[in-house]
């Protein structure tokens, strides 16, 4: 077995040994006649308590479901109203992000290089595990249609789909914008270059992509953005809606009555 496979198998085994211990709290403010919202707390490796926004459509189901993996930044907003109308949604806050920042508060800049000199200490080992825990939680819900689940986000969505086969679709916006942080680290510690590159190789999205069984849409590979972001969003939304058998929906056209 390669080091790559050993590394990720160890993450899976470590995660499997940690009970998720989900606690769901209904949130009236984010609930309507069309969907019900919950705050969710789960345990990931560490052990570390992470957070997620869950929204379940009203009705008998089963519902198409979308896992939103976290962005590179302190804050993830709850899933958009249009998505809560169409899907069962779960949005993960990884360790260090708001609502999952006790005892660890991620720094920006800083998170992308935290512990990067050693694959075992690299913070993203835990962050990927947090996303995998989110995937497991989503797919444990009785309300979902297991044949119509998707994962979205940046490279974290890709790694999640690679490590947890069974998603019908994976949509990735590409790598997060962290190269400047990496470059700063390399400039400050040039003697660590080989170690940093080695760690990064274990998280290389192209290497993980080989394992993905889902239909994929990778920005920068399968789709070049026009940067007319309303038009780009329509393309991305239409693709995912098509994969999960629902109608596309515009954010801009969705107006409260």
């Amino acid at each position, binding site marked *: 077995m390669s080091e790559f496979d050993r590394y990720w198998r160890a993450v899976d085994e470590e995660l499997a040994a940690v009970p998720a211990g989900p606690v769901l709290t209904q949130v009236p403010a984010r609930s309507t006649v069309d969907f019900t919202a919950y705050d969710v707390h789960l345990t990931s490796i560490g052990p570390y308590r992470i957070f997620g926004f869950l929204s379940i459509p009203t009705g008998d189901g089963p519902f198409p479901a979308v896992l939103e993996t976290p962005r590179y930044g302190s804050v993830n907003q709850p899933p958009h*109203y249009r998505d809560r109308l169409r899907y069962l949604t779960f949005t993960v806050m990884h360790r260090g992000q708001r609502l999952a920042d006790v005892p660890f508060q991620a720094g920006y800049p800083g998170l992308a290089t935290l512990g990067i000199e050693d694959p075992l200490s690299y913070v993203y080992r835990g962050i990927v595990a947090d996303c995998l825990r989110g995937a497991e939680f989503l797919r444990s819900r009785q309300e979902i249609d297991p044949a119509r689940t998707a994962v979205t986000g940046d490279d974290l969505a890709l790694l999640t789909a690679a490590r947890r086969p069974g998603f019908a679709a994976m949509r990735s916006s590409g790598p997060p914008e962290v190269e400047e942080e990496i470059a700063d680290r390399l400039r400050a510690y040039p003697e660590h270059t080989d170690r940093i590159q080695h760690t990064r190789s274990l998280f290389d999205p192209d290497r993980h992509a080989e394992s993905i069984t889902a239909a994929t849409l990778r920005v920068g590979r399968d789709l070049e953005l026009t940067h007319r972001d*309303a038009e780009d969003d329509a393309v991305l939304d239409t693709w995912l809606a098509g994969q999960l058998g629902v109608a596309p929906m*515009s954010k801009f056209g*969705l*107006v*409260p009555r």
Partner: protein
Amino acid sequence: MTVTATRDPATAVITVPRPPDFDEFWARTLDGLPEPDAALAYLPTLSTDAVAVFDLRYTSYQDVEIAAWYAVPRGDGRAFPGLVTIPGYISEPSVPRYWAELGYATLSVAPRGKLRSNAVFNPGYPGLLTHNIVDHHTYGYRGFYADVIRALDVLAARPEVDAQRIGVQGSSQGGGLGIVSAALRPDLVRCFAAGAPYLCGIWASTRLTHSYPYEEITEYLRVHPEQAEEIQRSLAYYDGMNFAPLVRAPSYVYIGLEDDVCPPETGFAVFGELGGDKVLDTYAGCAHHAGLPWVQPKIEAFLAGHLTPEAVR
């Protein structure tokens, strides 16, 4: 309940009542600020041969300590034009090396509640937009706005900064607070660039979008519908529509015509209220990015035209 609407943002009418004590309220807020202070710590790992980067801290409204990144071109003792950059609602302030390389001493502020400025005040996200929203005296944004104004004061007091050449730049929350900055510090703000301005036409926006952050107000009202009138009254003290007529500095405003976050109706409306020389660029097919990347060179040219920086890269 939602509807799919056909909209004509350019002709929408958006009005925000102006509280009779609006000017006094903000004068009292700013009069209560402590003297500008600044503690700097040099950050070698973030600095380059061209730019020195510092962690800067200062004391703001109600004695809350505020953090900022401060990036200064390495130079020969000449004074640099200054630039304050303001983060978006969920964004953390970036290290502004890029702007420093263009020749600006740049202060990238983390107003209260942002990382590094949240030890005392930390309403979280979602949370900031509705923190004490029923009471304009204690609304979370009161200190937040003051933190940005104090950032201008701190920058102007720096010995390496030419206080006659200070600009403000930001998008979304940074755009809205650019308008506030120019209104409350007309003697300091020489020009500002404001993209997709947030916190303008706030109440109207809750009727135009289901996107966050404004959706936070909609959610709050689901639980507290009886507070709608109080909230409207409170928000009027913070709405860019009421700051815009006070502006005298030249401005460059840019919006996306399909912005679901900060509805373009509010962008047109606040632009109409702006005093001073002003330019508006609109971008079809664009949402909250408001024309990036095409707009970036225009922002830089606009600021450079007023502030005359000398690039160091």
